[in-house]
């Protein structure tokens, strides 16, 4: 079970390993705040959808399992979206349409089909948590690099109250050299490519070790 959980980070990291959920990853990784907010939302949806789908796996007719998964996932996403809209309006505005698009995030349907429909409730919950944290981890990496290069600093505010800044720092040395390109989609692709290469290198090195 621990391996399931650990897999989500490096070996089967949903973003850098399985290349799932790329659309939202590239779009919302502009700031640390967005990354944390999106990561938590996806993780919550992933855990609950895995648990529910695993719980009803024995009574779900095989022919209509995909529509059932979609109904479960869409319900959870709608609930999360309404909660974010009500309690974290700032986050709701900055995430925009990508919050509702969690419905079609392949990580969630992928884990439902590949894992939750074949495994027990507890194992599915752990798998959801691991995958969700792996996704959040990938978002954090990309967003920190992008925010730092685009603005010369990192700012993080309390998602429940946007006026309250939890921490902020800026590198004066970096300020004159900020690259606004990194707040756009080109910067997202560049950052993503570098991390994807790094993760592939780590994986290939560890598999070579195992071979020896």
């Amino acid at each position, binding site marked *: 079970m621990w391996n399931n959980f650990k897999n989500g980070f490096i070996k089967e990291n949903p973003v850098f390993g399985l290349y799932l959920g790329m659309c939202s990853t590239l779009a919302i990784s502009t700031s640390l705040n967005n990354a944390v907010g999106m990561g938590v939302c996806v993780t919550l949806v992933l855990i609950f959808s895995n648990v529910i789908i695993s719980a*009803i796996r024995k*009574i*779900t*007719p095989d*022919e*209509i399992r995909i*529509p*059932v998964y979609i*109904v*479960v996932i*869409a*319900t959870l996403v*709608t*609930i999360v979206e*309404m*909660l974010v*809209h*009500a*309690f974290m*309006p700032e986050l709701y505005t900055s995430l925009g349409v990508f919050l509702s698009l969690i419905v079609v995030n392949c990580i969630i349907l992928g884990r439902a089909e590949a894992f939750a429909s074949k495994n027990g409730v507890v194992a599915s919950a752990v798998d959801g948590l691991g995958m969700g944290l792996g996704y959040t981890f990938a978002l954090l990496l990309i967003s920190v690099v992008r925010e730092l290069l685009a603005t010369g600093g990192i700012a993080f505010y309390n998602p429940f109250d946007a006026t309250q800044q939890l921490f902020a720092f800026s590198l004066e040395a970096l300020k004159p050299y900020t690259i606004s390109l990194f707040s756009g989609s080109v910067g997202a692709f560049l950052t993503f490519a570098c991390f994807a290469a790094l993760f592939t290198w780590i994986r290939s090195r560890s598999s070579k070790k195992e071979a020896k």
Partner: protein
Amino acid sequence: MKKALTLVLFLGIISAIAGLGVGAVNSITAPLIEERLLAAERENLELMFPGAEFSAIEGVSDEGGYVTGVFEVVNEGYAVKMETTGYSSSTPIILLVGFDNDGVITNVMALQEQETDGFGSKVFEDDNIQSAYVGKGLDDTVDLLSGATVTSTAVQNAITSAQAMLKDIIG
């Protein structure tokens, strides 16, 4: 046949449970969301309808896509916020228009505009916009301001679109 019925029944039950869940959460969050929407707009609304009570009307939209917010002013009428592009493509014109219960315009306010000085800006100077629109009913027409055609056309299109939408709301 029996198989198909089981499938339909299963998906129906799942959807019903899902609907119940969404409905339950919505009943908690809907008032909070409305409160947030109102809080952002309250300052401007107070300016237009001092001392009135407001509630946001959700799920309505106009054909032209100009309207960004619709508010019911209890016992007094409606306030519609809209956004349109005039001559300045970078800064949209944001308008707040007050209507009474019959849809007659009671007030027009430009919350934001950055139209060309001396041309488009004339639309918003000297109460020009108020004298052009205040008192007009849902079907009345308004003359464009010469020398500021682009801006006044933009304003007119937005307001006409909002009036058409309001017609449906008032019924």
